[in-house]
């Protein structure tokens, strides 16, 4: 096909058309972020929706031990969630990639993807039914005579992490499955032919080669659970709080939007710092993986 005169062969005539919606969205996000930043630097006026003059008092308030503890708890819950999701998700992803049976693959895929089709609130309420004092787990254990008193799962960090693992599981499994499917099975066969057992093959060949997927999955699960709201709100019952719950409690439930905005800005900064640290820690793994 002839190109119009004076036009480079590798021009991308549709780029501008495709990029325009993205640019508009980016502009919208930036405007919203600017508004949040602006609110975080304004004073709260009791009984009014309008913020007052500029102040740093909102950020000074964040230095109180309570807020430091909630920020720390949030990071811990996110790490526990990401690590637990990895432990539970890896075998699932491995089985999904390696099984030869189309039926097993389909069943696994349904198990993995189903949580994405449930709303966060519905999913969380179902966990309340499972974890409650009269819930499925406690009723079963009490019925079998294993325990005499219900175990307290609700309103605990454990309960929140369990429910969050359910939320982050699909994305972790999909990322791990993508990484595992790129590993050339001849590497494992070669290790086996040299006398390595299945466990040694997994630990010295499969696992290291899947590390890019592990890092990507961990990072995404961490970032995803960082913004969790309904799960810690309902399972935590005000006893286990993450940053988003504080934003709701102190901002929206009491109309103190400037303080809520300062919590958002601090939360965003913390996310960037933690994810940057994770990226730095994972840098040595950049040269590992299937090539």
């Amino acid at each position, binding site marked *: 096909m002839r190109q119009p005169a004076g036009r480079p062969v590798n021009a991308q005539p549709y780029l501008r058309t495709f990029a325009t919606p993205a640019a508009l969205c980016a502009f919208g996000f930036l405007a919203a972020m600017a508004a949040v930043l602006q609110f975080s630097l304004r004073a709260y006026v009791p*009984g009014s929706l309008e913020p007052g003059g500029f102040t740093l008092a909102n950020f000074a308030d964040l230095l109180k031990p309570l807020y430091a503890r909630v920020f720390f708890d949030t990071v811990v819950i996110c790490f526990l969630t990401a690590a637990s999701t990895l432990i539970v998700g890896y075998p699932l992803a491995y089985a999904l990639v390696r099984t030869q049976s189309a039926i097993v693959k389909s069943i696994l895929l349904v198990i993995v993807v189903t949580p994405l089709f449930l709303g966060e609130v519905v999913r969380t309420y179902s966990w309340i039914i499972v974890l409650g004092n009269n819930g499925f787990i406690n009723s079963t254990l009490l019925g079998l005579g294993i325990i005499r008193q219900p175990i307290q799962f609700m309103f605990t960090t454990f309960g929140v992490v369990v429910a969050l693992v359910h939320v982050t599981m699909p994305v972790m499994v999909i990322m791990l499955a993508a990484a595992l499917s790129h590993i050339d099975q001849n590497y494992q066969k070669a290790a086996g032919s040299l006398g390595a057992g299945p466990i040694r093959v997994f630990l010295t060949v499969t696992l290291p080669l899947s590390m890019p997927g592990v890092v990507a999955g961990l990072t995404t699960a961490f970032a995803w659970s960082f913004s969790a709201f309904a799960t810690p709100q309902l399972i935590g019952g005000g006893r286990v709080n993450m940053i988003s719950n504080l934003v709701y409690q102190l901002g929206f439930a009491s109309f103190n939007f400037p*303080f809520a905005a300062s919590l958002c800005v601090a939360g965003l900064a913390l996310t960037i710092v933690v994810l940057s640290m994770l990226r730095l820690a994972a840098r040595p793994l950049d040269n590992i993986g299937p090539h």
Partner: protein
Amino acid sequence: MKRLLLALFALAIAVPAQAQDKLVVSIWGGSWRDLIAETVAKKFTAETGVPVEFITGGTIDRLNKEKLAKGNPESDITFTTSHVGWLYANDGLFEQLDVSRIPNAKNLADEARISPFHLGAWAYVYTIGYRADLLGNVKFESWNDLWKPEMKGKIAGPDFDPSHIIAVSAILSGSDAAHWEKGQEKLKELKPNFKAFYTNDANSQQLLASGETPVQIVLSMNAYYMIGQGVPITLAIPKEGAVLGVDTVAIMKGSKKADLAYKFINTLYDPDIQAEIAKLKKGSPAVLNAKIDPEIAKLPGVFTTAAQWKQQINIDAKLRAEKTAEWRKWFAENIMN
């Protein structure tokens, strides 16, 4: 054929005219919207021929939307809680009411006359609701009973608004809501007895129905809904009184249907409509001349006389609007975390 064309023309000009005449009411969704649709709106439309359209949403969502639409409101009438109404009023979103245009308002209880901008539509209480079947022989005659050691790890309260228990703690400490600081130490002593905090009515229902928190500082209307669903809840009215709550109605500033809006509010205060609302929601009518079913009238937390209104703990709505953020922050820092 000519007649048919004329009829079509008449219809074409009539439809937009009718659409323009509708009255837009902003209210919470679900059963609250249905409540107004089946009572006030039905009668209002029957009397005026003007349909009522609803805008529904959460308290804060609706407040923010109206703030953004200031001067050109999305709705003509807004229902909201009394202290949130003050936020609308302070921001110039409500029209100052001419009460002479609402003849039925002459029967309003004093406590329902919240401000020159918004008036009570119905009332309820926040009080102690409990599962007697799970607690055994426990009685709540005073708010002080919540502080008993046997209540350790059994109580839930709303996480969105601690004003009720803050006011109660102040009163039990010999003070009042305006001087709430005097109740701080008392409230801190209650901390071990809180097991959880609920985030909305559905969450409150789930915690009580499952027995996870067998004692709650609960909205009376919500408790009656659960009782209707078969959850064996007992509502106690402590000797100090329950904490009064009033949902209010107001006309939005800039509404072009002020006449209709006044008629709508007057219909709301019709004694029969108020009795119907009380029956459907197990709440208290805002007017004192409503003849409500004796079975409803005798329920704890439902009051029909001026004396009964005065027996409740009434936190001034303006004070509450100004103090909510401070109370909420203190509560989060000292009780919840």
